[in-house]
């Protein structure tokens, strides 16, 4: 019941962020003013149905044109996008990953496919920071052509959302693009297949190992307005929260871990003893208020 609520919100979010449903008629992407807004989750803006801009694509584009921008005294360094992401992060931390991101929803659904499941080593959780630093900021800004322009390297070489949401649909809608398909497309298709396979084997594989947007939000988990609270007096160390956590977190050790996507499975579904609750500023959840009254 409780997980159904989150699933419903994820689905509604995916439909709203991809709400341009007349794309089969227009045979191209949405070009309206809503694309001034950045999606809070990972959603390629070249998806024919996408109604908003991808924040990672926007940052990369701004980094790729950094030198010409500065030479023209425009100083576009991504403050608008980073400010937007920072406001969201400051309010709820990495919660968009758990409740809003369409690619997160896809991974949740893929993990439901029956079969062998594997645990990921913790070292892989640093992958998103590597892709953030190099794929989103450094490479677009530093690997430039003779005119001073860079490229959206993360989009170009890695992002499976672009291949799935933009590449495949647009190739179907615009036959003229098919003649331009080269080895890079097939490599990206292979990368997409790899992420899909790994998402069946391990929960939230892309989020845990690669997603630069999750990396950005993760910086805010310890300072956000919305936070989880852990009560050690109520904890029986049954480890059910750890077992059920899609990000593999030991909630009793690190309730506001940087990897936490605030899906709330631990407190809504796993813990039967009320050891985990949440707070929003100075307001706390019902379980915690009960403790405060008794305390």
């Amino acid at each position, binding site marked *: 019941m409780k997980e159904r609520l989150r699933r419903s919100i994820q689905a509604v979010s995916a439909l709203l962020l991809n709400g341009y449903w007349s794309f089969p008629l227009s045979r*191209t*992407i*949405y*070009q*309206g*003013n809503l*694309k*001034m807004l*950045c999606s809070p989750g990972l959603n*390629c*803006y*070249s998806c024919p149905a996408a109604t*908003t*801009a*991808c924040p990672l*694509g*926007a940052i990369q*584009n*701004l980094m790729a*044109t950094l030198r010409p921008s500065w030479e023209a005294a*425009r*100083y*576009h360094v*991504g*403050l*608008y*996008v*980073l*400010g*937007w*992401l*920072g*406001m969201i*992060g*400051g*309010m709820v931390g990495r919660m968009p990953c758990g409740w809003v991101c369409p690619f997160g929803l896809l991974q949740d659904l893929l993990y439901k496919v029956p079969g062998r499941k594997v645990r990921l080593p913790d070292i892989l959780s640093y992958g998103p920071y590597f892709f953030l630093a190099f794929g989103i900021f450094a490479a677009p800004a530093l690997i430039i052509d003779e005119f001073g322009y860079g490229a*959206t390297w993360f*989009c*170009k070489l890695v*992002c499976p959302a*672009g*291949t799935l949401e*933009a*590449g495949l649909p*647009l*190739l179907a809608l615009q036959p003229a*693009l098919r003649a*331009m*398909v*080269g080895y*890079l*497309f097939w*490599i*990206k*298709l292979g990368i997409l297949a790899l992420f899909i396979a790994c998402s069946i084997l391990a929960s939230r594989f892309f989020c845990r190992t690669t997603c630069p947007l999750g990396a950005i939000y993760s910086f805010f988990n310890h*300072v*956000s*307005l919305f936070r989880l609270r852990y009560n050690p007096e109520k904890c029986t160390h049954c480890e059910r929260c750890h077992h059920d956590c899609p990000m593999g977190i030991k909630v009793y050790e690190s309730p506001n871990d940087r990897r936490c996507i605030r899906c709330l499975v631990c407190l809504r579904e796993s813990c039967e003893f009320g050891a985990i609750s949440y707070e929003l*500023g*100075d307001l706390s959840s019902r379980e915690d208020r009960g403790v405060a009254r008794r305390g």
Partner: protein
Amino acid sequence: MKKAPYAVILFFALLCLLGVAVGEVPEVLQKATKVCLQCMGIG
């Protein structure tokens, strides 16, 4: 009352407004309304 979250939100709100003031929004819009061949793995 915890002040850190509010300070963080305010700081990034100001960053966002600064980005709007220097004209980043039209640039974001312009890029987002063009088909990204690189995202598709073509360009």
